[in-house]
């Protein structure tokens, strides 16, 4: 049961990674590309972490959750900075 959940969630995460990469390569414009990338950061990585959690001990699962939260946080901020500089607003 746990293995089935892992396979489903990690596969879904991998599909999102693939879709996000295709979007990063094919979408026109910086903002659209960033939009594709955030799906990978948030949902893709989140699904991979969620899928791997039942395979780990409690402490390791908590560590992976922390990694996901940190990536979400820094990803959101870096995306903001990139988007602002792409729109020519500079550093504000």
């Amino acid at each position: 049961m746990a293995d089935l959940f892992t396979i489903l969630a990690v596969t879904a995460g991998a599909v999102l990674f693939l879709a996000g990469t295709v979007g990063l390569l094919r979408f026109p414009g910086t903002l659209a590309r960033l939009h594709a990338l955030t799906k990978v950061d948030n949902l893709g990585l989140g699904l991979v972490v969620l899928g791997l959690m039942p395979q780990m001990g409690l402490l390791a699962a908590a560590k992976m959750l922390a990694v996901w939260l940190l990536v979400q946080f820094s990803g959101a901020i870096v995306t903001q900075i990139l988007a602002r500089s792409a729109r020519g607003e500079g550093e504000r």
Partner: protein
Amino acid sequence: METAFDIVLALLLLGVGGWSVIARNMMTAVIVFIAYGLLLSLAWVRLHAIDVSLTEAAIGSGATGLLMVIAAHKVAGDTKRVVQLSRGFHALAAVFAALVAIGIAALAFVLPGEPVSLAAPVLARLPESGLGNPVAGVLFVFRSFDTLLEKVVLLLALTGVWALARDEDWGGVPGLRLFPERHSVLGLLARTLPPIGFVFAIYMTWAGADVPGGAFQGGTVLAAMWILVMVAGVRKAPRVSSPLLRLAIVTGPVVFLLIGFLGFLTPGAFLAYPEGFAKPLIVAMEIALTLSIAVILGLLIAGPPKGEDAP
């Protein structure tokens, strides 16, 4: 399955490495080089060398990458500062680089048939030091003289960076000013992340005695937090003439040397530890070194002192 992963990883490394060499744009080359470092740290994980992997990701990819991004950013659009080399010079450099690569690759084929491994004797005597991580054991017990020299080299590198300052800027504030104003979005990150980073860095240094980690990795995380704070403009870089700053820079090597000379008194040799005190002394050295490495790396990235209105 694992072999397939390793083959893909090796091919990716070759491809990304080659891309970084032939990239026309300097910034592209630098960014590809950072990706190359991250892939390389993955390769070290596959070789079960977690300590090397952490160092590669932190120093090889992170700190070096950041230095090169800053350098590429500084010369971008400034054609006077980009030295145009002739085609022949490029070819000559390529030939020499290829010769070095072939030489190193050839070494792999002339290795003695039976690999000479010191792993067994190291593991046999490691418990005497009280350490659990064999890498820390090699760094601080079996080859501590090399480790001492490594830390002193960092001091020399920092002196070299500072020497690039103009005379009138000597002793001033390092010239890392990526954003003219305080950056509000980055400021949020620079206020939220450092507490987490500090705890993580202390954990890495402390745990380094028994599991992968240690002074270099912990110090790099601390340095990254400091750089984030400086770049976001939350806190300014200190003047490099500040006595407190200079004390922090030399603390690591000084504690290392003091403990080294202490070895003359009790067991009777340089860098030898008194019976039963090896682990506490090594942990003391690691803590002092973490502080120094963090400050030195931060200042290396911050660059030479520069006046406010200097170009």
